[in-house]
């Protein structure tokens, strides 16, 4: 499979403020009746699934983890690692077949909507509101929980390390200095950089695009990579999967106006712009079949002059090897905002990653205890970074340096904004943008925060739209087809697939949401 499950969602991570809505299950069984000072898990074994492969050195970390857990809470954690390529399928099969499972990573881009609609997730409302889990409440901002509530109940615990993350650019800083005035702060300067590279650096393609981030080139939600208008004025949050519905704000506070996505700000201009880049050789012509890791790797070996970066603090590590492969190369992270670090964007606080408990689990109280336990700095660090001294060293309170190759998918279990340590030695631009992402003042609340669209009345249409999207929209997003015909084919395909009907249904539900 070409598209990594996360790749098109990393764009949405921008607005993923995630509501830590782990509704506390009101299982007032005798287990929970212990005195709040010393909760007892009763020897429960929590079966969990995690994506990826076992980290190097996991055995010792797991042993240390369970030893502590056993002593302090009487719980044991038993995770199964499932390779990324199969995580979505295998995890859903476990839910479906009723296997003993207590906690799992879930998300909008996995199956959360379906699980919620089927009532397959445990109700955590009582747990969350009870006050029995103070550290958990303290380290997850209430707003994330509030906006993920499903019909008022908390069904998932948000895992966040920042308020939002945007897809932007990583550029070759040495080339920016060579051809420009040393920095790229607006769209015109970006375009100038791209064309300068094309003209002067033979053999280098100015921008490397992959299939996943093709979903980010055009939409102003809030910004599109090549959507010039959105750099100046970030757009509202789009609804529906694949951002098919542009929520036109001109309707006012009580009247939603869902319009087809091509009516969004700057969309059609961006289509023409991307087509020009394709024809001029500014972007690679195999974007639709390119995968993210290979593209990033090719940037690091000097084939591309720039590629996509996300401001989640990972840029430095991802492209660290470039200095070895290309002498004299340096990198800079640039986010698509003319306003720079003062930019403010709308977000609906939707989180990219949640921890959920199946409704069939018998250990929901223990799951909450475990999540609470992980919300303490030293426990969090043990799981996230490994054994101190062997896998990592602390650098101050907020940073760390990695010694071994231990790498845990913390976003699947224990991301907490106040507890996260950033890697020491981040490049300044990346650190600046990561800090930006953690600051709530940079995010305004979208009017549809907390709104969840129920797909069941239009699931057949959505399936057709999904197929039509891949066939007609993606080629436009990478510039592979001629624009006039491409746009008109796309519009008729979308309309033929039932977009009108879906937008009408969306309007009905959205208006009800605004009224309620």
């Amino acid at each position, binding site marked *: 499979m070409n598209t990594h499950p996360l790749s098109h969602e990393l764009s949405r991570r921008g607005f993923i403020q995630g509501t830590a809505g782990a509704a506390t299950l009101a299982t007032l069984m005798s287990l929970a009746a212990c005195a709040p000072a010393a909760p007892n898990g009763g020897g429960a074994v929590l079966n969990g699934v995690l994506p990826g492969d076992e980290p190097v050195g996991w055995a010792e970390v797991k042993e240390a983890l369970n030893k502590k857990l056993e002593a302090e809470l009487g719980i044991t954690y038993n995770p199964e690692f499932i390779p990324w390529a199969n995580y979505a399928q295998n995890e859903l099969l476990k839910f479906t077949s009723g296997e003993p499972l207590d906690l799992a990573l879930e998300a909008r881009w996995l199956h959360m909507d379906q699980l919620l609609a*089927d009532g397959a997730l445990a109700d955590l409302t009582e747990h969350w509101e009870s006050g029995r889990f103070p550290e958990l409440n303290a380290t997850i901002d209430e707003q994330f929980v509030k906006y993920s509530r499903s019909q008022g109940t908390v069904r998932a615990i948000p895992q966040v390390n920042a308020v939002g993350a945007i897809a932007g650019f990583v550029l070759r800083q040495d080339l920016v200095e060579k051809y420009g005035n040393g920095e790229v702060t607006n769209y015109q300067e970006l375009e100038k950089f791209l064309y300068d590279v094309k003209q002067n650096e033979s053999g280098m393609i100015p921008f490397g695009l992959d299939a996943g981030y093709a979903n980010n080139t055009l939409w102003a939600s809030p910004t599109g990579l090549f959507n010039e208008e959105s750099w100046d004025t970030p757009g509202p949050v789009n609804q529906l999967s694949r951002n098919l519905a542009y929520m036109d704000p001109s309707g006012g506070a009580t009247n939603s106006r869902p319009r087809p996505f091509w009516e969004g700000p700057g969309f059609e201009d961006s289509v023409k712009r991307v087509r020009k880049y394709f024809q001029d050789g500014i972007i690679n012509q195999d974007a639709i079949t390119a995968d993210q890791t290979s593209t990033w790797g090719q940037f690091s070996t000097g084939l591309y002059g720039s590629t996509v970066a996300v401001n989640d603090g990972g840029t430095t590590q991802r492209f660290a090897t470039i200095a070895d492969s290309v002498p004299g190369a340096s990198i800079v992270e640039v986010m698509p905002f003319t306003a720079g670090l003062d930019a403010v964007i709308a977000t609906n606080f939707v989180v990219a990653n949640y921890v959920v408990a199946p409704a069939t689990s018998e250990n929901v109280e223990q799951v909450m205890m475990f999540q609470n336990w992980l919300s303490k700095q030293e426990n969090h660090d043990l799981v996230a970074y490994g054994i101190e001294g062997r896998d990592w060293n602390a650098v101050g309170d907020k940073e760390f340096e990695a010694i071994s190759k231990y790498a845990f998918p913390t976003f699947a279990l224990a991301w907490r904004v106040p507890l996260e340590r950033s890697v020491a030695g981040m490049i300044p631009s990346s650190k600046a943008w990561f800090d930006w992402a953690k600051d709530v003042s940079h995010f305004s609340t979208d009017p549809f925060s907390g709104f969840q669209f129920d797909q069941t009345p239009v699931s057949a249409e959505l*399936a057709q739209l999904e197929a*039509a999207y891949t066939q007609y929209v*993606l080629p436009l997003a990478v510039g592979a087809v001629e624009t006039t015909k491409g746009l008109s084919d796309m519009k008729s395909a979308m309309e033929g697939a039932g977009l009108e009907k879906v937008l009408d249904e969306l309007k009905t539900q959205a208006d009800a949401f605004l009224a309620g």
Partner: protein
Amino acid sequence: MTTAPHRTMRQRRRSLHRDNTLWILAIPAVIFFFVFSYAPLVGLVVAFKDYNIRDGIFGSPWNGLENFRFFFESGNAGRIIGNTIFLNVLFITATIVVAILMAIAINEIRHTMLRKFVQSSVFLPYFISPIVISIILQAFLAGVGGQGGVVNDMLNVFSIPSVNWYSEPGPWPVILTIVKVWQLAGYYSVIYLAAITAIPEEVYEAGMLDGASRGQMAFRITLPYLVPVTVILVMLSVGRIFFGDFGTIYAIIGDNGVLYPTTDVIDTYVFRALRTAGDFGMTAAIGLFQSVVGFVLVAGAALLARRITRETSLF
């Protein structure tokens, strides 16, 4: 391969008597089919249900033919079904023809080592996973960045302009067929070679005595002996003609929408449409549709084959 011409009463009774132990040999396979193929079929009801994870297969509510809607109302159903059939016919025809030709050609090789080399080589492509095939194909047709590739370089040598292969839907049925032949003809040729091994020597001796050349013997003698195997292979493929070759096609075409008009098949369409929704009911519904059509076609083909020759019919 003829039945015994004349049996005595005693022989007939004896062979009927022997029948009673023959079926024991089939027992392991029968158990297998019951457990792994037939028992799970109860799950097919989900094609007519609005599948809910909590309610499971049997608790979910019925929704009639609703699960079939997304496919048949899309307006693309005709083209997709057409592609599926067309590509399958191309694949099976080309693969079998090349396999037969290769088997005959390999059979002609005299030098032992060379023959072993060739036989081993043609079987190799079968092992290469579709993803690797896709990578190699990209290297041939597009290069890195999408603007180059071995084929384009060769075209340029003859002053023919480069073609952006991954943006042109037209040639792809042929390209895919070449890939399938490369992948499978060797595999099938092994079957055909084993069939050639089974041809009685007397037949060739007779041919040589009549002064036939090797070429004539290959086509007049060998070929007819390969017909039964071919009929079996074709019949087995007929039932699956509505099932697209998802593994190979998806690995190569992926999400490249520009190529869908000529390469999108039922399985890839359904996969794309349902991959975010994960609706088992819809997936099962289309699978059921493919199976039913396959049955109808096979029944038709079996009747047809029965008319042509009793000997080679499957049932």
